[in-house]
């Protein structure tokens, strides 16, 4: 088994554990490269079908290419898709800096969707290497009734035994690709020939490394116009993946504050 085989097998194991142990699951589909890999892994785990809904919490501010991608692959992949809107910006904590406040809309949208559907498990495509607070995550991560994350009181998790019993009213986040890196995602996307949104590839010397709302996400300088070139670029770069995501950089703790209150 090579490195990608090992990552794949571990992710499939996690997805199957979630499906076996939780009653009402949904997969959070952000349309980005990570959640597309996750859907691919779910289809591998369950032999071609995704046996739970794919939920897109839609800020309404994504790139047109992202919506086109969504509408095409909902059909091709046979997804049971749930598109959930986000509340207006006025409903969001006004003490957050502008970009973080914008991103926090998604957290509010997520909370509303949770209340509406009563999911007890949300599968999310976050990775440890993306961002410092995500490095602290468990694979099965309990959330409070308000969707909050108590980083100080996480249960132990070892030997692939997961805490899968959320208290009444709370839910679990399940992170099947927590152990993957950005380079792993691209190498696997290339190997498996998984479709991607073209914004990830260089056009006029720029490309997006990470996709979010169109107004707070910026491209990076890059000549990589194929996945192979992206992989080569990642070998060389020391710039963090989320450098183009404004919300990460407004204050030192903006991202952490978002996550404690339920952001992905």
């Amino acid at each position, binding site marked *: 088994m090579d490195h990608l085989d090992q990552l794949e097998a571990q992710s499939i194991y996690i997805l*199957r554990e979630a499906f076996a142990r939780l009653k009402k699951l949904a997969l959070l589909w952000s349309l980005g490269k990570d959640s597309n890999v996750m859907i691919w892994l779910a289809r591998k785990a369950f032999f071609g079908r995704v046996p739970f809904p794919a939920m897109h919490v839609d800020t309404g501010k994504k790139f047109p290419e992202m919506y086109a991608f969504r509408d095409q692959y909902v059909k091709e992949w046979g997804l049971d898709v749930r598109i959930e809107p986000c509340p207006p910006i006025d409903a969001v904590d006004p003490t957050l800096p502008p970009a973080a406040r914008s991103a926090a809309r998604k957290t509010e949208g997520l909370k509303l969707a949770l209340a509406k559907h009563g999911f007890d498990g949300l599968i999310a495509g976050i990775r440890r290497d993306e961002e410092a607070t995500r490095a602290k995550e468990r694979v099965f991560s309990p959330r409070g009734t308000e969707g909050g994350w108590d980083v100080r009181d*996480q249960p132990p998790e070892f030997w692939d035994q997961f805490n899968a*019993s959320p208290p009444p009213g709370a839910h679990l986040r399940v992170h099947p690709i927590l152990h993957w890196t950005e380079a792993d995602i691209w190498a696997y996307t290339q190997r498996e020939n998984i479709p991607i949104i073209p914004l990830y590839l260089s056009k006029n010397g720029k490309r997006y490394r990470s996709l979010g709302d169109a107004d707070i996400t910026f491209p990076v300088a890059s000549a990589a116009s194929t996945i192979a070139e992206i992989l080569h670029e990642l070998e060389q770069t020391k710039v963090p993946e989320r450098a183009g995501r404004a919300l990460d950089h407004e204050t030192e703790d903006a991202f952490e504050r978002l996550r404690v209150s339920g952001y992905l």
Partner: protein
Amino acid sequence: MNIQLASSASAHDLRAVPPELVQGQARPQVRIVIVGHVDHGKSTLVGRLLHETGSLPDGKLEMLKAVSARRGMPFEWSFLLDALQTERDQGITIDTTQIRFRTNAREVVLIDAPGHAEFLRNMITGASQADAAVLIIDAAEGVRDQTRRHGYLLHLLGIRQVAVVINKMDRVGFSHARYREISDEICAHLDGLGVSPTAVIPISARDGDGVAARTPQIGWYVGPTVVEALDQLAPARQMDELPLRLPVQAVYKFDDRRIVAGRVESGALKVGDEIVIMPAGKIARVKTVEGWPVTPVSAPQGAGRSVGITLDRELFLERGDVIAHSSALVRDTRRLKARIFWLHDTPVTAGATMLVRLGTMESRATVVAIENAVDPGELSSVGTRSIGRNHVGEIDLSLAQPIAADTYSDNPRTGRLVIEVNGRIAGGGLVLSVDAGARGVPVDIVPVESALRPDERSARFRHKGAVIWLTGLPASGKSTLARALERRLFSRGGSPIMLDGDTLRAGLNGDLGFSAEDRSENIRRLAEVASHLARNGHVAIVAAVSPGFADRAQARRIADELFHEVHVATSAEVCEARDPKGHYRKARAGQIHGFTGTDGGYQPPTNAELVLDTGTKSVAEATDEIERMLAQRGVLFEELADLAANI
């Protein structure tokens, strides 16, 4: 961490690259954890290692130095890791972070684990993922309680590769004597646990001595530097050489395939293999290995693969079963002994009940006895009758249901367990011994299949195989209905066979009494016989009080899709008034005890396929209803044409 890792250009690149590492080829990955007493310098060592291997993102060091200056505090290497705001405020690491970097010979995934006793659950979460460990000790403070505790936990987590690092040598003037003193003490402690350190390295993480370079200050030291020690670590142990263990995660029926899904924990499996499903000991062959997008898959499936297989026969199996080869069976047991660490506030005591998870199996368990409970941080080990928080000990467990398990020494993957309290993992440990169950080891059992196909019989009988399970209070009319149904089906050319609970007790179940355990076994045997008949195309009509919900659920699992439950829900008053066998009268007179009709022990079904009240319906009407239900569910049919086409 958002540390993108990075080129191998680094200070130690001048050393020879091992010949197996041609440029561009993947280095073996090792996952290491750095553990030790709080403040002995773990985070500092990690920060220094990242710097020495050229792994820091551009500007990260300068940014943190600027942040430190702004806050009016001196820069510390550990700030690199203390990425969370809350941690910087408190100055301690509260959870594990994973950082990747490269040495000349290894792709290293570094797990930083907190040293504070408060956060032992986080240390375990981090360390459990490691192939090897670095145990760090402050040269001035020496071996402390948390040093010993972490050493003990490494042993319990199954980590056998341990490098010891004696840090802050600058504080003791790089004294060789002090180094030897600490080295002797920690080596003695680890030897006692069966762990021999791969190296004991004197360093100053802050200044860099011994990390990547052998400086003059430690000129008396001849062993490897930390980076060299990392280069020598062996990657994760290969499980392919061990016997096959495939714990079942789930059985999927998304389409006409019945796919058994799970991960091969050890050994390998391929199409055509004869397998044994434990703990029940049922035998089958692997018909196909399913995949997606390509299926079926012909290559053997080795350890670590998540697979899906179909079997050559319809067997009942469920999550928690373990698939093995008959040549090297996993043991089935309801008793096992484990050495555990405990993380919950409430100590474990004898008599406590808890939930045990081993692989994908879960079972209620009772602690029968506790031995050798110790605080691994203390020097003297005083045995107690309970295992407290952050302590270790050996427990003897009695499980509510048989499970398949190995000892840890036989198979690390299927020989370890976790314990849950109130839905939260509260401890874990290694299986020391397994008391094999009373069941004989079914090495020589090879079921012979019938010469007839099921459709040959159904074409003649005009019905499919089925188990009709009649449950209800004594005297509710089960046997009467069973006899009427038997006659009805036989008259239309079918092959009904009645299994009456009392009749079977005279023979097959003559060894069983009326204890809860014996009643369960009685039901299990009825279900096994009935489902055997049903799988061979007959309609088995079971008439048995079968009062327990769990026992009937087990019967349903055994017969699976062939099971049709009929609740004969005649009221208790009507039953007692009938009393054809005189049992109600005797029970009321105190002549028989534990009689289901009068002790309120009957648990009515909540999901029966049919509910009948013989107090308001004639026998013929009730039989009609059962017949209708069987026709609706496709068990009975009139037309032969479709089936005949398939013969």
